[in-house]
């Protein structure tokens, strides 16, 4: 039974709560670095290492870090691991370091890592947190591959950096640009929706305040201004007239 629970923690991040395709977190690196399989996989691995390490450390320190200053503490822990990964890549794999560029440093503010710290690692023991980090990391890598493959194949006519001659005259260069990234990402999520539709649908948390690391602050702010309009509007599959949607938005913020 205990073994099943551990397995489910690991597997949850891969499909059921896939960070990129279901939770819609960490969209920036998903679009920016998923232009080729090589950069997608290296980005995924770098983020997974940071995710597992920071989950472990945050989980170990969960009883020591005061609740009120936890977000800055988490950011410092994450930044430390990102710096370590960056230095290691610079020293041993300079080609990958060059390829990822500023996006490597931006792992610090990747919503997935802060989100998992906030949602999971601060409430759970070390082993579970490490598994959660690993599962989410693998889910992240798989999602990046799914987005990167069509972009590299159709956009640049390459697979894993190897040019395919027969694609020379039929490639669609726009898919390799950020615009193509948005497009393929949208299509992939739509396909996921279609596939999960028959199984009763996955509970989708799109742009949800709950999955956002700043949820607590945002809610407080939302009370004052009604800014934090939850996912109810976006996630709902029904059409709403604009003014009704606006009212709901204010309600969502106040709730």
């Amino acid at each position, binding site marked *: 039974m205990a073994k099943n629970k551990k397995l489910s923690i690991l597997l949850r991040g891969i499909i059921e709560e896939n960070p990129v395709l279901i939770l*819609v977190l960490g*969209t*920036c690196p998903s679009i*920016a670095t998923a232009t080729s399989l090589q950069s997608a996989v290296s980005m995924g691995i770098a983020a997974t290492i940071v995710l597992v390490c920071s989950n472990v450390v945050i989980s170990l320190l969960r009883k020591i870090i005061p609740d009120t200053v936890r*977000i*800055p503490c988490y*950011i*410092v822990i994450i*930044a430390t691991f*990102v*710096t370590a990964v*960056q*230095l290691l890549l610079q020293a041993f794999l300079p080609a990958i370091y060059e390829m990822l*560029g*500023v996006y490597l*440093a*931006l792992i*610090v*503010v*990747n*919503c997935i890592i802060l989100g998992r710290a906030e949602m999971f690692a601060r409430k759970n023991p070390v082993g579970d947190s490490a598994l959660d980090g690993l599962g989410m990391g693998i889910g992240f890598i798989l999602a990046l591959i799914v987005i990167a493959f069509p972009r590299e194949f159709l956009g640049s006519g390459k697979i894993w950096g190897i040019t395919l001659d027969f694609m020379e005259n039929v490639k669609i260069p*726009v898919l390799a*640009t*950020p*615009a*193509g*990234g*948005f*497009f393929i990402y*949208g*299509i992939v*999520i*739509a*396909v996921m*929706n*279609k596939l999960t*539709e028959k199984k009763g649908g996955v509970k*989708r948390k*799109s*742009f949800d305040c709950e999955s*956002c690391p*700043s949820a607590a*602050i*945002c809610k407080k*702010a*939302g009370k*004052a*201004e009604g*800014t934090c309009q939850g996912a109810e*509007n*976006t*996630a*709902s*599959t029904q*059409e*709403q*007239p*604009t003014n009704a*949607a606006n009212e709901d*938005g204010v309600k969502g913020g106040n709730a």
Partner: protein
Amino acid sequence: MKELILILMGGVLINNYVLQQTIGICPFLGVSKKTNQAVGMGIAVTFVMLFATLATHPIYTYILAPFKLEYLQIIVFILVIAALVQFVEIVLKKFIPSLHKSLGVYLPLITTNCAVLGVVLNNITDGFNFIQSIFSSLGVGLGFLLSMVLFAGVRSRMENCPSPKCFKGVPITLIAASIVAIAFIGFGGVVENLIG
């Protein structure tokens, strides 16, 4: 002067962070449902980017670089940005309450915004001096504001369109973003031709 204008316009149109470099997508998708919110978020981000550059550039030039501590830049910059956002919020609340009321709600969200960290890191990587960095941050911030406002307009029209069931919500938003991004590709080379 010409160079500074090029940097500024480059940030707004050509290297638009959201649509051409895909940095800062979360607020772009999350807060672009209503135009007034998009404007508020955009102005707040521009504001914080400027202040962050004013703070981080001297820190890098006069503290980190002379002591060979460049490798600490990520940790130092993210802490400076977090502290700065808090500081700006307190100052605004105390001295300009009307501005705090309109921008205040967005400020806490900006700490974890990758566009702010991205622009200060890029200013260092590109080797900009202090004045150039300020113009670059201003350009990137205005570019962020522009894309937020444009996209909020697109989105308010899109909400009323009948889209296929599996495209409802996130997917159709991303595809709309893709079309807006294609429009921005057209700006490449425009600025150089206008000025040069």
